[in-house]
């Protein structure tokens, strides 16, 4: 299970080690291991029910693995509650967009900075000098991110009325506001048309290059994964089927069988 580890000389940014997840007797993940290195775009693929989302939820601490470990920069994240994941540099987006619908775009992105700032209710109520300074730093940062993702024109709009594609960009902006080292993207192409998927792929690559953010891409859309990922991990029935470059994984007979079915089926 440690071939991936041996193949690399540098220490991984994120290491998934023999992770098992069991739901009342059903094995959702069985001994899954892989490494993510700084600056990589890692694509996690697999048919429905392969365990992609389960693994994703382990990384964001919504599920507790029954065995194995997940290490961020060499330290286990499994003792951290979900709200203390953002502060170690793991940011995420959600499969069907989970924004704060009644808040403006600006406020949604401001909430993203929560893990990187501090305050208490008394200082906030009195709007003390240090709170004002911290808020103006937040605003500068948020403006920069909105400009980066071309969201300035909708900054004051309430999120619930925006088109789906724009909401997805707002979610990205919110995740970026926390200065993540790793960005977990849960099916970002879902619900987008061909043109939008192409633009999204470009954007993800740009975010990696400009901001030095490592990306874990959980995705159904093969075209997107194969065009932007540096490294692909394929799962099926909770097990790792194959791992390697997009071309290697695409050519792997087990992967082809999982997607298209074997001859004797």
């Amino acid at each position, binding site marked *: 299970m440690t071939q991936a580890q041996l193949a690399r000389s540098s220490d991984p940014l994120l290491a998934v080690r023999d992770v098992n997840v069991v739901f009342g007797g059903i094995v959702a993940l069985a001994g899954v291991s892989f490494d993510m290195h700084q600056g990589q775009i890692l694509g996690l693929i697999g048919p429905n029910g392969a365990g992609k989302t389960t693994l994703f939820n382990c990384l*964001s601490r*919504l599920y507790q693995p029954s065995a194995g470990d997940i290490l961020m920069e060499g330290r286990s994240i499994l003792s951290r509650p*979900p*709200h*203390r*994941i*953002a*502060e170690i540099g793991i940011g*995420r987006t*959600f499969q069907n967009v*989970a*924004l*704060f*619908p*009644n*808040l*403006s775009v600006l*406020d949604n992105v*401001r*909430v*993203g900075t*929560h*893990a*990187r*700032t501090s*305050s*208490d*209710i008394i200082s*906030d*109520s*009195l*709007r003390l000098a240090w*709170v004002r300074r*911290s*808020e103006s730093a*937040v605003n500068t940062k948020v403006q920069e991110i909105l400009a980066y993702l071309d969201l300035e*024109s*909708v*900054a*004051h*709009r*309430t999120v*619930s*009325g925006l088109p789906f594609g724009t909401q997805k960009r707002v979610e990205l902006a*919110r995740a970026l506001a*926390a200065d993540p080292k790793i960005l977990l993207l849960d099916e970002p192409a879902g619900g987008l048309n061909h043109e939008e998927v192409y633009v999204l792929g470009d954007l993800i690559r740009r975010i990696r290059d400009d901001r030095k953010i490592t990306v874990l891409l959980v995705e159904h859309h093969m075209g997107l994964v194969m065009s932007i990922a540096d490294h692909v991990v394929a799962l099926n029935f909770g097990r790792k089927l194959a791992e390697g470059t997009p071309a290697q994984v695409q050519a792997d007979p087990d992967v082809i069988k999982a997607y298209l079915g074997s001859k004797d089926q």
Partner: protein
Amino acid sequence: MSAIEEVGSQAPAVEAVPKRAMTLSSGTAFVVVLLLLVVPLFVKNFIIFQMTMLLIYGLAVLALNILTGGSGQFSLGQSAFYAVGAYTSAILMEQYNINYALTLPVAGVVCFGFGFLFGQPALRLSGVYLALATFALATAMPQILKLGFFEHWTGGVQGLVVTKPDAPFGLPMSQDMWLYYFTLAITIAIYIFSVNLLRSRSGRAFMAIRDNEIAASAMGIDVATYKTLAFGVSAGITGVAGGLGAIAVQFVAPDSYTIVLAISLFLGMVVGGVGWLPGSFIGAAFIIFVPNIAEGISKGLSGAVFGVLLFLIIFLVPHGARQVAMVAQQLLSKVRKT
């Protein structure tokens, strides 16, 4: 610029409470404060007393608004916090001879602690279940206050009589007028603190939790802490209102703080518009004056008249005073354009 025009052309999105729309514009706020300062000089003491009560209930509704409109938690138990605040002030003033103004921060802190503690078990509940748990608190409170064990402090069923303070520094004004301006100063201060809070990092955390708990948690927000803090803040403000209420009414007794008060405050919040802070005071006016108006229309059927009025409001303007204010604002901007 185009974005602003787009917003203007949309149908009013009444469901959403953008943060900027939670408060009044500075011009409107100035006029309101000016009226609140000047009007008492020209009216009778009884009207001044009613205006004081309006501010006090307004604070209590505001506190509920922070809890429900801000953090999305329901409470039908605000009367319990109000009672604790009232009794704290009354006991400190009458049993320990502490100055009335100093009893209010104590009432606030005691109620903050009480609310924060109550928020802990309430974390496991949401929606109607939370409403029911707080309802239980409101039902229990008058009986707890009557307990023989506390009678030495609370005066039991009899309650406590509170002395009304005179105006300080030999100011030439009646007790009622002094208490009004005293209450007004506290109300304005708490209102400003509340607006600051909701616009701050903490306020954003409250609203993020209201809108989506899982996403809030993924952003690093400690959902449990902020939910209990919201309960604490709400209870603290309600406690200050309760303390002021005790001083204004000059009397505390267990049966003044029944579930009826909690429901009134809830009603005030809905009529004022959930999440719209200025609406709290309009809602307070509703729960103080409309029952009297109903009685004026029909003595025997005042409850039924009140019910019909309430029904009409909920039917015609389901989002309360906030909706009226938004429509008025749109009309005003149309008039200005032409």
